[in-house]
């Protein structure tokens, strides 16, 4: 383990930002802290960096207790959402800063600094900007410079706070792929904070989902997406339809429709939340087989892109159900707005109220 986080608590006044958080980050992994704004993810990152002190708990780097170390002694590279470049210095001087402020005994020679800075600028593919000032650069370029600056001090751990949050969508996509490739080259233990689930699922080796100051789930992107352990994780990762349901002896009732579950056979009269992902819904114009179906009207069709998004309205219900079909399937059905259809959820996950375990049903 290169970073061990043990029982961290942090309160701001009466607000509990982190509530007994423990986490291990193995060496060389790229880990995403994912959660909605205000969930405590940035606070946790800042505590790891030493920019914030925890009320209790400890941080260990490579087995050594680093809780009491000052930020400048922690040997972490920190990348800020808004870059925090030194605007009165050239790009070269920004990257060189961490080397120049070293005490005389450990400070490299000017020639060495020059060599190292150019090496880093080449790594981030911006060597040609060395003499510019930060305000002359685009957002994506600034963030890459900020990364080069953080790497210049050869940190043991790289911490990134919403590194792509201030960039526009296209640059953000490019840059996060680039970050992934860079990490594959350098293998430096890295933690980045994001509220963008797509970003976390695409870039990270492991995703840590945080909610209200507590860790909800830790796992590979595949695990957390396919097997969310709580209603929160289900809702937070990707689009999902949510229903109030009633569980009784292995059957989940949503409205008048009863769905057979492969779990909860002994559960008596409990209310629960049921989740269905939009792409796990089948749509037919006629009844299809004898499994239970919802009847609905097509409320809205968005056929742009590879997937067709439908909004479906069940009679007497206010919330709309979202469904995704392939273009081929959509053409085959020939759906139009206002049409009456039958909906078959293929994969439903239920969470009994106050419980973190669920059962699946599989249909068709």
């Amino acid at each position, binding site marked *: 383990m290169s970073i061990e986080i043990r029982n961290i608590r942090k309160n701001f006044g009466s607000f509990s930002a982190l509530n007994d958080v423990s986490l291990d980050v193995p060496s060389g992994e790229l880990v995403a802290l994912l959660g909605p704004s205000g969930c405590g993810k940035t606070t946790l990152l800042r505590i790891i*960096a*030493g*920019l914030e002190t925890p009320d209790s708990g400890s941080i260990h780097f490579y087995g050594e207790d680093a809780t009491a170390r*000052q*930020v*400048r002694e*922690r040997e*972490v*590279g*920190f990348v*800020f959402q*808004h870059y*925090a*470049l*030194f*605007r*009165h210095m050239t790009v070269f001087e920004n990257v060189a*800063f*961490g080397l120049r*402020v*070293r005490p005389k005994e450990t400070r490299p020679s000017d020639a060495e600094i020059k060599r190292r800075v150019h090496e880093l600028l080449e790594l981030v593919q911006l060597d040609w900007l060395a003499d510019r*000032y*930060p*305000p*002359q650069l685009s957002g994506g370029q600034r963030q890459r410079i*900020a990364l080069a*600056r*953080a790497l*210049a*001090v050869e940190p043991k751990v790289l911490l990134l706070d919403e590194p792509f949050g201030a960039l526009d969508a296209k640059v953000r996509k490019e840059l996060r792929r680039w970050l992934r490739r860079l990490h594959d080259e350098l293998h430096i233990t890295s933690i980045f904070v994001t509220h963008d689930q797509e970003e976390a699922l695409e870039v990270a080796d492991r995703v840590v989902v945080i909610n209200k100051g507590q860790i909800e789930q830790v796992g590979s992107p595949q695990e957390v997406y396919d097997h969310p352990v709580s209603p929160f994780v289900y809702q937070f990762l990707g689009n999902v339809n949510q229903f109030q349901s009633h569980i009784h002896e292995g059957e989940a009732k949503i409205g008048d429709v009863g769905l057979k579950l492969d779990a909860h056979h002994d559960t008596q009269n409990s209310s629960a939340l049921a989740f269905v992902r939009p792409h796990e819904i089948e749509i037919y114009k006629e009844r299809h087989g004898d499994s239970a179906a919802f009847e609905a009207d097509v409320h809205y069709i968005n056929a742009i892109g590879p997937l067709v998004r439908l909004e479906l309205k069940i009679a007497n219900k206010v919330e709309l159900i979202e469904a995704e079909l392939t273009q081929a399937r959509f053409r085959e059905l020939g759906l139009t707005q206002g049409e009456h259809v039958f909906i078959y959820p293929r994969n439903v996950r239920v969470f009994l109220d106050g419980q973190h375990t669920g059962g699946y049903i599989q249909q068709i």
Partner: protein
Amino acid sequence: MAKQKNILPGFNLSLGYTLLYLSLIVLIPLSAAFIKTTELSFNEFWNVVTAPRVLASYQLTFGASLIAALINAAFGLLTAWVLVRYTFPGKKIIDALVDLPFALPTAVAGIALTAVYAGNGWIGSWLEPHGIKVAFTPLGVIIALTFIGLPFVVRTVQPVLEDLEAETEEAAASLGANRWQTFTKIIFPAIWPALLTGFALAFARAIGEYGSVIFIAGNVPFVSEITPLIIITKLEQYEYASATAVAVVMLVISFLLLFAINGLQWWFNRHANAAR
């Protein structure tokens, strides 16, 4: 040539008004001083403005103003820093106190300072036994000029400090910089244009100051007599031409000093604008 369209209307009118206003308020009275001076021949003029007593007063006025402005730059920066960076009970009151030298009639300030620093005053009675005389010495002049110049530095540096991103300091710390390096390499370069402006304003104000100084200075010729007092004295003796002659010299020196400070700022801004 097609008339250039500007999204903001009234350019001609507002520029014309500005020029007229500046002429009426600033340029005409100033040029009157120059014109009045021409009543003297060059030799007369030279004798007036280089009289030993007048020369001593230049030295005191500009020297004391410079020292006062430097003191204000240092302590004004500190005050601004405290007001921006820390929260403490009574902060609002201290913030308001900073403006007091602006609001107080300078004569009142002068009398109050004299009363405090005189040999029998609260502070003066403490200092006198140690051989430090404040009232009626150049030291008194410096204190009075420091008093009236304080708000300029605080009020110019404060907003810039407030705008300073805390993140850049955190970035510096995470890169291994200690507090002193963070201050000298990151914070100071960001606030120093504002500090220079505050210094220039405090300096200019101190050069022209009259009311608060004359009480505490005691106006001993060659020791604690400031140039504005010399001008007043000459006016009281109906020597209008020689009064304006001294005034013109002050004006020219002040102008050159402000010009130099502005030049320094322009140079810095050009440097910083490359960074924009």
